[in-house]
């Protein structure tokens, strides 16, 4: 029994303490959080724009008069549909590698490319969440806004989007949690994120148990922590439901 404990202890020292190997994990965690945070920000901006185009297109296009407005909205709506289909229909690792090795082949800033690739990926999922949020807002809100002389964009910005976001905030926070785990494939494009850090240590110490379990634990703690925050947020939102 004590020999097993001793073994674990020496494994721990070998993988985390010796040669300050814990630094890999800390810097890897920093990279993971940075990618996730900025990717989610890109995703929310991109996703909201796509959601506005998609929900507007679906609602207005059938009854719209022929003219430049209809053509513009039709093209935008079509492009958004293609974007959603392609991004949601291919694995994120492939998207990441295409970004790194083809689209941004001239840059070797892996973290930045990962942020962009995950941001574009997340945008597609956020778009569907926000679209559901926009559709959950009563149509009378748009009419009331327009009847007061607000433009379509103003009505969206002041009246529809704030209510839509409030309705889907828990789902958006969930998207952040999902993305946090998805970024673990960033190592494919030479990014030293948390997963890659564990892999590097495993490769140097030739012991898999400690680094991989350690990394898994860190992800798990993060996810449990953020899920707890989301739950708190949900309760707050419900309480402030006027």
């Amino acid at each position, binding site marked *: 029994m004590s020999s097993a404990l001793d073994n674990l202890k020496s494994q721990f020292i070998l993988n985390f303490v010796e040669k300050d190997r814990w630094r890999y994990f800390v810097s890897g965690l920093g990279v993971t959080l940075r990618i996730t945070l900025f990717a989610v920000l890109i995703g929310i901006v991109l996703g909201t724009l796509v959601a506005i185009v998609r929900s507007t297109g679906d609602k207005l296009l059938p009854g719209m008069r022929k*003219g430049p407005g209809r053509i513009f909205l039709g093209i935008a709506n079509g492009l958004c549909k293609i974007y959603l289909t392609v991004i949601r229909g291919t694995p994120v690792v492939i998207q990441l590698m295409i970004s790194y090795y083809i689209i941004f082949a001239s840059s070797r800033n892996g973290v930045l490319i990962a942020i962009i690739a995950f941001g574009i990926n997340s945008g597609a999922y956020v778009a569907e969440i926000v679209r559901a949020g926009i559709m959950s807002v*009563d149509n009378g*809100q748009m009419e009331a806004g*327009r009847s007061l*002389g607000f433009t379509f964009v103003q009505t969206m910005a002041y009246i529809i989007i704030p*209510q839509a976001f409030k309705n889907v905030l828990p789902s958006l926070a969930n998207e952040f949690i999902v993305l946090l785990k998805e970024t673990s494939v960033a190592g494919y494009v030479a990014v030293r994120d948390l997963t890659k850090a564990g892999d590097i240590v495993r490769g140097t110490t030739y012991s898999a148990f400690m680094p991989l379990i350690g990394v898994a634990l860190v992800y798990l703690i993060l996810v449990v922590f953020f899920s707890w925050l989301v739950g708190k947020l949900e309760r707050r939102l419900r309480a402030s439901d006027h």
Partner: protein
Amino acid sequence: MITNQKTVEPATGEVMISVHNLQKHFLSAKSEVRALRGVDQTIVKGEKLVVIGPSGSGKSTFLRCLNRLEEPTGGTIIFDGVDITSPECNINLVRRRMGMVFQQFNLFPHWTVLDNITTAPVKHRLMTRAEAVDKAMSLLKRVGLEEKAKSYPSQLSGGQKQRIAIVRALAMSPEVMLFDEPTSALDPEMVGEVLQVMKDLAEDGMTMVVVTHEMGFAREVSDRVAFMDDGLIVEEGTPQQIFTNPQNKRTQDFLSKLL
């Protein structure tokens, strides 16, 4: 004012809205619904026009075409000398001058009553925030709801919501007010308070177009009643003429069902 001395023709005074051959077709999955089949109307400044008719007659569509919440399929709407159906017309600027009140109130639930009222005039730079608040508070006082300024819409009754919705529209100092069945979604005991606000507004000389089922209101307040059926104005006249001596068969049928 003696109601039975009013006449429909001639419509004297400054023309505010003139509608010519207004048409609206909806494309549904199977067929084309012709909600408006050529409506002509002239509304003069200060006039109170009440539009009545069975459901599906096109009266709400007619009203909603006046500020182009519904895009007309054909015909023209001249507001203050400008054709607002033309593509060059900036409808957003026109709508600032036409207040609208909805059946379902459509207050903004994420804003306080005061923000509901002041945001539009402030964002349009028609007033400073302080001016807008002053105006909002005096309007709220007029409808007896000044203590609700900081409340959220969900904390109000239906009648209160609708009075706030009227104030919200009035805060833009509109030249005409459009009412789309303003009391139809209210509990019976709250209809009176909303109608009273509308009566006060009428007495102040506001130009009003009202789609309603409140025949008492139509009789008491309107200058002219238009009866719509099947996308057309079938009959119009003073309330006296329409309610006591309707000429058209369909008007007679409709009114007899109400009594």
